[in-house]
């Protein structure tokens, strides 16, 4: 294991916004996403429904161009492992919504097991509507082995 200092990494990076993007929610892609995932609830598959909205996992595919800040510390080798995704909803996302998304390091922590120490880096994307109200937050956990 290297002499990686997780506390120092957290201090330096957690909360650092390193990218911002603007997007408009596309109705056709929203609908196709819901249908191919097997949704049958009209809120997600019927554009004429008064509460038509994006299905639960829809925002998870919106990726920033950069996974990490350009000058982020090298940890392990290669791209690492996908540790999973979490989405938290605050209000519905509608077709045609103009959203602003920020990308930051949401957390950094380590877990040690039989295969050594794994470092978890949370890429957090937060979506805001035109009134700057938080719509959804997606956490993507990237795992790298500390060698």
């Amino acid at each position, binding site marked *: 294991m290297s002499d990686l200092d997780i506390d120092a990494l957290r201090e330096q990076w957690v909360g650092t916004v390193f990218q911002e993007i603007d997007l408009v929610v596309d109705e056709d892609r929203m609908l196709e*996403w819901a249908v*191919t995932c*097997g949704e049958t*609830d009209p809120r997600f598959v019927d554009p004429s429904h008064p509460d038509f909205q994006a299905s639960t996992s829809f925002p*998870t*595919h919106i990726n920033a161009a950069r996974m990490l800040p350009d000058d982020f510390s090298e940890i392990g080798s290669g791209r690492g492992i996908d540790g*999973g*995704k*979490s*989405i938290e909803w605050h209000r519905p996302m509608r077709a045609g919504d103009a959203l602003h998304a920020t990308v930051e390091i949401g957390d950094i922590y380590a877990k040690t097991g039989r295969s050594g120490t794994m470092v978890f880096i949370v890429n957090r994307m937060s979506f805001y509507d035109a009134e700057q109200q938080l719509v959804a937050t997606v956490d993507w956990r990237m795992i790298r082995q500390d060698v």
Partner: protein
Amino acid sequence: MADHEIELGDELPEERPDVSMETVRRFVKAAQMDFPRFTDHEHARAEGLPGAVIPGIMSQGQLAAMIHRWAPGSQILVLDTIFRTPMVVGTPVVCRGAVTNVEDDGTVEVDLTIISEASGATGVLGTAHVRLPT
């Protein structure tokens, strides 16, 4: 389904979502992630995968759809998934869920899994925090 009908330990009806190549191809186009590791078995094997793999976020969407059918009108507040084992496109999977907590505020916690019917391996583990319709 009203929350008073739901009890700790209740199991959601199992579902076998469509994981055919045709549907995965449609999904990855909608997701703007049309990469051969999801749509071409040979290419995926060359990358060291067991075959073209079902995108993890598609599995996440299938679990959400199962919850919405189980509790129509519910709102998933949080859905957290871990992608444990690659699951191969065209190989049947089964989605399962069980209620692990019932709160007084009308929300429940549901533990979720997706298992490959061919190998028995758990491909996806998850947890959802769900607000039930009043």
